[in-house]
């Protein structure tokens, strides 16, 4: 048993190294004074400074934040309604709707991107930041729904009976009991959706119109013209803020 435990431990360590090694290297080289990514010439913050001066990059960052904020709010509204509404349905219909809602999580993102593009073209909706927001909301609704439902299932169903017993209508109970108790889960789901939206490339790539460049799209276009330490710095900021948001989200969900 002990032998196997030791092995598993080493395997996990190797796994972690493989996962986080490249990210660590990337962050490390963002502080490199050299123009060339591969050689180390001492510590410097110059790439972060040039980043701050890059107008196009800042515009892309602003786009990303806008898209993430609006699509998260949209996904939260729809996802929370769905999660709460599903509770009231009978077992079979509940499962059917739930499974249908989970499909966006499992179909290849490229497929979703292409189908959204086709849909918008067909409906004659011009591609813009709005179409990106709709696309992001689409794949974030199931994320919100799953997180909120997990919390809902842990709620004591008697609390709603008590509320009814004390004279609360369905909506009263929702407003004064269910939603307040779901608050940590809703916040956690929001942060998760926000992060996913912020990081998304594929759906954004297909649904973004001219001028609607988000940060991941910008990074991609910068890489095409050659790897610069500026990208390292940008990515480092990205990784750290995403991890922070996810960490916060998990913390909220555990409460």
């Amino acid at each position, binding site marked *: 048993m002990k032998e196997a435990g030791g092995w598993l431990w080493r395997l996990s360590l190797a796994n972690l190294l493989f996962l986080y090694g490249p990210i660590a290297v990337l962050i490390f080289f963002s502080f490199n004074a050299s123009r060339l990514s591969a050689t180390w010439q001492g510590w410097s913050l110059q790439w972060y400074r040039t980043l701050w001066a890059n107008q196009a990059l800042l515009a892309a960052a602003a786009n990303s934040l806008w898209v993430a904020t609006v699509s998260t709010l949209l996904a939260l509204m729809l996802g929370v309604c769905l999660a709460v509404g599903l509770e009231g349905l009978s077992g079979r219909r509940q499962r059917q709707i739930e499974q249908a809602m989970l499909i966006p999580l499992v179909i290849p993102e490229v497929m979703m991107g292409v189908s959204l593009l086709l849909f918008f073209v067909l409906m004659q909706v011009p591609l813009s930041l709005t179409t990106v927001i709709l696309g992001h909301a689409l794949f974030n609704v199931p994320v919100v729904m799953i997180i909120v439902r997990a919390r809902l299932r842990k709620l004591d169903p*008697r609390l709603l*009976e008590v509320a*009814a017993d*004390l*004279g609360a*209508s369905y909506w009263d109970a929702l407003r004064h009991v269910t939603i307040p*108790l779901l608050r940590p889960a809703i916040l956690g789901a929001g942060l998760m959706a926000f992060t996913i939206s912020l990081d998304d490339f594929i759906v954004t790539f297909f649904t973004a119109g001219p001028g609607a460049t988000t940060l991941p799209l910008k990074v991609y276009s910068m890489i095409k013209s050659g790897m610069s330490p500026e990208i390292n710095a940008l990515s480092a900021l990205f990784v750290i803020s995403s991890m922070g948001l996810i960490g916060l989200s998990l913390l909220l969900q555990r409460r």
Partner: protein
Amino acid sequence: MVDQPTSIDIASLVKRHGATLAVDHVSLSVRRGEFFSLLGPSGAGKTSVLRMIAGFETPDEGTIRIDGRSMEAVPPNRRPVNLVFQSYALFPHLTVAENVAFGPRMQGAPRGEITSRVRVALDMVKLTSKEERLPAQLSGGEQQRVALARALVNRPAVLLLDEPLSALDQQLRQEMQVELKSIQERAGCTFVCVTHHQEEALTMSDRVAVMHQGRVLQIGSPQDLYESPTTAFVARFIGVSNELRGIVRRIDGDRALVQSPDLTGEIRIVLPIHTPVREGSAVTVLLRPERLRLSTEARGLSGEQSLAASVDKVLYSGSDRHYMVRLGERLVWNVRVPNDESGRNGLVRGNAIHVRWQVSDAVVLIE
């Protein structure tokens, strides 16, 4: 008590869970201001009855009336009753005061009135000092009090309690039995309490309905149920009971002689008035352990019955000694003797003794 108006009137209530009858034609009425208990083992259907009164379950047949008004199609939030859940189900995100204020708030009471009603309710359960705490910061007994206050603040016509004391430890449970009773007197409303704990039901209630397998077996005061059970189930469920099965051999006025295959002799019993016993009837004779006395004398006083026995086992419990005495090959009875003389050693295993009792103390059930 008798001419008090009816608070709850239940007529042939039926609830099916699949093929089984969870509640089987239950009829009972609860008087206004009464402490009424539904007592029975788990699965007896008592909680179903309670939940139907509260409106969380719909009866398949039968009617429930509260203060004369039919409760059919009246949702839980419109019924003049409040339920205290077994798990208390306090709102974890609200303080004690906010929990208690929930009901009046939902009814749209003005702010000032809410505050004063919450104060009165918390005062009634003696919890005024903990207003700002969250439920998680309270002990089990305190949570129970909050649940009670949260229900009582609505001034319900009937307060329903589902196993109110089961989550408390033994010590606290006994304190709360007394407390609940006095809270009921202070609040002056009807209490209907579900419990599987016979001692709890007896100490707190004015009347008790014993339920078993969905049916009400007997309704009566605690004393009625203990002194004159009408079925062996009730006798066994409430307190400890010694039983003797036999056949009536001879009837002599209000006395009868019963012969049992478990005994060599016959025993004399007093027949309750109006019991349709004939010679040859099969009966079960019940005797409470504390009504039996142990004696070395074979001859008892007049009106006493005596049977030869031997001590099988002695259990010492402080205030009492419990003797298991053997009266026959297959017949062992339980005798409870108060430990009222210090230094007395009592009997030991193997002692030959006589079990004596007043013939009128025996309860007779016809099979």
